[in-house]
């Protein structure tokens, strides 16, 4: 499994946000994007997820028996949770489980298990809108567990979380990496991963940026 980006560049409106970003991630690798606000972290993640067209360069994915479109191998957790407040948590999760489908059969955990893993077992029958912001975030994270994807793309995953929930998240991310998954995250806080590579985004630069290493 390899997620490879070569010479990526993207614009926000008229301005070039970044250019010539390359990385190459294999199974178990994590890449953390850091940088000040507006440096293009979110944009880079959205380009990799295939939600924004790249100005230049390309993203390729090679996995066992999967198609070469990178976005299909990815889970994307953006600022918004992609859950409907009118529906219960389990309705939301089971919708995404069925809709996303498990790429590697059977590797997604059940809904009850997933809510247990994010530390909120037993309240899956509540409407999503009843939960607090932090709980909603945790349930959105449970979405990553119910349908298996090798690549996790997380945009500020720790926003609105307390210390204990952060710990839970770090654990889950570690487990994902140990199982051979990939991680691409933008964050302000340290995620507490020991083997992570870091990509520092400087933003609004016309000159090529230092990529990895």
């Amino acid at each position, binding site marked *: 499994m390899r997620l490879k980006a070569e010479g990526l560049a993207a614009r926000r409106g008229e301005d070039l946000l970044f250019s010539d970003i390359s990385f190459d991630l294999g199974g178990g690798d994590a890449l953390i994007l850091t940088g000040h606000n507006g440096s293009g972290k979110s944009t880079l993640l*959205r380009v990799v*997820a*295939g*939600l*924004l*067209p790249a100005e230049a360069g390309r993203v390729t994915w090679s996995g066992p028996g999967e*198609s070469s*479109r990178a*976005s*299909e191998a*990815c889970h*994307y957790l*953006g*600022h*918004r*949770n*992609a*859950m*409907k*407040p*009118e*529906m219960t948590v389990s*309705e939301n999760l*089971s*919708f*995404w489980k*069925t*809709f*996303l489908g498990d790429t590697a059969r059977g590797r997604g955990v059940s809904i009850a298990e997933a809510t247990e893993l994010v530390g909120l077992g037993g309240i899956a029958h509540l409407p999503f809108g009843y939960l607090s912001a932090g709980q909603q975030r945790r349930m959105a994270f449970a979405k990553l567990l119910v349908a298996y994807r090798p690549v996790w793309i997380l945009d500020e995953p720790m926003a609105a979380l307390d210390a204990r929930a952060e710990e839970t998240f770090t654990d889950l991310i570690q487990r994902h990496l140990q199982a051979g998954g990939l991680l691409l995250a933008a964050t302000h806080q340290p995620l507490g991963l020991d083997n992570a590579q870091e990509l520092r985004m400087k933003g609004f630069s016309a000159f090529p940026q230092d990529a990895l290493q």
Partner: protein
Amino acid sequence: MMTLLVRDLKLSVRAGGGALIGVLFFMTVVAVIPFGVGPDLNLLSRIGPAIVWIGALLSALLGLDRLFQTEREDGSLDLILMQEHPLVLTVLVKCLAHWIANCLPLVIASPLLGLFMNMSEVAIGAVALTLLVGSPALTFIGAVGAAVAVALPRGGLLVSILVLPLAIPVLIFGVSASYAAVEDPAPFMPPFLILSAITLFFAVLGPLGAALALRNGGD
């Protein structure tokens, strides 16, 4: 895909869903017409099919702007765009769910309003039938407008403005088929078949256009 259909239907009947409001708007629009033109039953029965059709057209547009906007607001649209399902199919299913939740009630309510308009039984049947066949076209055309205006803050008004001109052929053939059913010399089938053809045509073109717009409207 079935799960998407079921989810959208669930959402439309849950609190805050628009299914009831569309029918209510339809009834209100049609009900105020007699106050404007006067309670002359002959006149009402003459203009009835046109009034019912225009009322249905307006109320079908009412909820359309929310078709993709709610998905975008909570981030679901991103996840839907990333999937391997053909996006055209996803859009088609969403249109279908929207039609079942918002337009089918209009079709069911139309005979009632036909009675208020003092229309004959044949005319009522014809209007209900043409609405049943023609209203999917409105949803499919509207999907393009909704996809184009998905990221705009006051998208609702814009969707109506964008979609109404495109919906004119549907209105023309829907109303003329309804009239043809009542008035003798004009045959019913030709305009009705054209209406069906328009619906089938937009069932292909609408989702294609909407998918294209969604792909390019990412931010």
